[in-house]
């Protein structure tokens, strides 16, 4: 890559905490952000899955009343994460035309959409709010951040299910490499803990049914895993050319050295059992980084805790890394956060960046009996990473056969 790209700001709101530091501390402490849903609709509709990873801090406790009225919950989370990342980067002075946003969501404004339809059915069209369309559109979260920081270099939204926000970060590389953009706020958000998406994911048997033990339900790589756990929240990263960051004396967390997107064209929901598309994404990201597979020391895996998905990712990685897989420290952080769908890649990118910056791989919880078919070295407590330059990747895969992989290098 011609321009070096660095991470200068991070922000998040997750089931573990309302910001990056509280989230990261809870993650390192091995906490679970998953809990039983107390909402009346669980009982009312007899929802078969009664738990999820709800945002630890409610958006309405952070934002102004007009912001909560005019933004879908997904955009509210995006704005919170975006503002934290921007402030963390030192609110850089950048020409608005050279500032862009690449911010994803998997599902979009599902609360707004379904609330509006309920209103239409119950009270007629005169009660459907005028802000309904801008609130439900999937580019709403990106637009909310773009308006907030006055980004005029293009505000775009990747939508590729659970690969969305990793794809958004990969897209940011292209913008920064173009020479037209100095700074990008990239990431993703999701707010889909609503009875309809839960019912729909449950209907396809994608969700864990461990209703009696929510904190143990998300258990990637464990033999007793039975599906993913829905989470909500957002993650945002300020990405910047190294030249721009250095010129303004910014602190630098890590270098973003590669990002690649491929597609399986195999099945709308099932992963390719050979893992060819996922493997190509890893190889392409490493090629951009001018790195060899043997350089990778840490992987933040997609690892959603589904029986099939965790194995498919392992098969793909085995294709790329071969025996070097034994030397890589794996973290499956969805065990603590649940699966934030279109926000997952963004918070996992932040975890990967912090793992390099603090030289510690975060733990994977609930791994009591590791699946013998997935013989990876998984950190179950915070694991110190070696001295010297570090290369790590974060993987995300989504319904539709989307594969997205990003690579970060430690920065000195």
């Amino acid at each position, binding site marked *: 890559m011609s321009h070096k790209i660095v991470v200068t700001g991070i922000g998040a709101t997750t089931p573990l905490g309302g910001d990056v530091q509280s989230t990261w501390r809870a993650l390192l402490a091995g906490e679970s952000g998953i809990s039983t849903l107390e909402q009346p609709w669980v009982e009312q509709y007899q929802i078969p899955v009664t738990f999820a990873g709800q945002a630890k801090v409610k958006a309405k406790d952070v934002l102004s*009343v007009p912001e909560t*009225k005019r933004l879908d919950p997904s955009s509210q989370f995006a704005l919170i994460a975006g503002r934290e990342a921007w402030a963390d980067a030192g609110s850089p002075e950048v020409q608005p035309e050279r500032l862009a946003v690449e911010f994803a969501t998997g599902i979009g404004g599902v609360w707004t959409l379904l609330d509006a339809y309920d209103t239409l059915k119950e009270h007629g069209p*005169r009660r459907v709010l*005028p802000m309904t369309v801008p609130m439900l559109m999937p580019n709403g979260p990106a637009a909310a951040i773009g308006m907030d920081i006055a980004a005029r270099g293009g505000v775009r939204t990747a939508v590729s299910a659970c690969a969305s926000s990793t794809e958004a970060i990969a897209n940011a590389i292209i913008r920064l490499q173009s020479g037209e953009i100095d700074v990008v706020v990239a990431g993703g958000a999701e707010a889909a803990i609503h009875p309809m998406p839960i019912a729909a994911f449950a209907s396809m048997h994608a969700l864990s049914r461990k209703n009696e033990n929510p904190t143990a339900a998300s258990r990637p790589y464990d033999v007793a895993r039975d599906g993913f756990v829905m989470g909500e929240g957002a993650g945002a990263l300020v990405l910047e050319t190294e030249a721009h960051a250095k010129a303004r004396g910014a602190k630098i967390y890590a270098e973003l050295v590669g990002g690649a997107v491929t597609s399986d064209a195999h099945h709308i929901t099932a992963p390719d059992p050979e893992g060819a598309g996922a493997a190509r994404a890893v190889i392409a990201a490493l090629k951009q980084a001018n790195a060899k597979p043997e350089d990778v020391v840490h992987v933040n895996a997609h690892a959603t805790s589904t029986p099939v998905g965790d194995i498919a990712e392992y098969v793909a990685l085995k294709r790329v890394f071969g025996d070097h897989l034994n030397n890589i420290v794996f973290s499956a952080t969805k065990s603590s956060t649940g699966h934030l769908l279109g926000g997952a890649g963004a918070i996992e990118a932040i975890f990967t960046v912090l793992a390099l910056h603090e030289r510690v791989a975060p733990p994977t919880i609930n791994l009591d009996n590791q699946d013998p078919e997935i013989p990876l070295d998984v950190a179950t407590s915070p694991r110190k990473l070696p001295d010297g330059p570090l290369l790590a990747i974060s993987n995300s895969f989504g319904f539709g056969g989307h594969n997205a992989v990003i690579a970060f290098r430690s920065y000195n």
Partner: protein
Amino acid sequence: MALSQAEVLAGLAEIVNEETGIDTSSVQLEKSFVDDLDIDSISMLTIVMNAEGKFGVTIPEDEVANLKTVGDAVSFITNAQ
């Protein structure tokens, strides 16, 4: 029982505050929604809709354009009750 003009003004000020963040004390009878309070058209439509719900009145779409000031809206709602 119908609300007084002062009660309608107070209720409308709350609706404006929730939608726009404008302080309720700034929502005064002589203020123009567009020129003084800087309320955009979508917010105005939302305020009208919420006022219909709160005060149990119907504000026809043709009428919205005539509600230039807070006082216009308060008078319309007070008379329509």
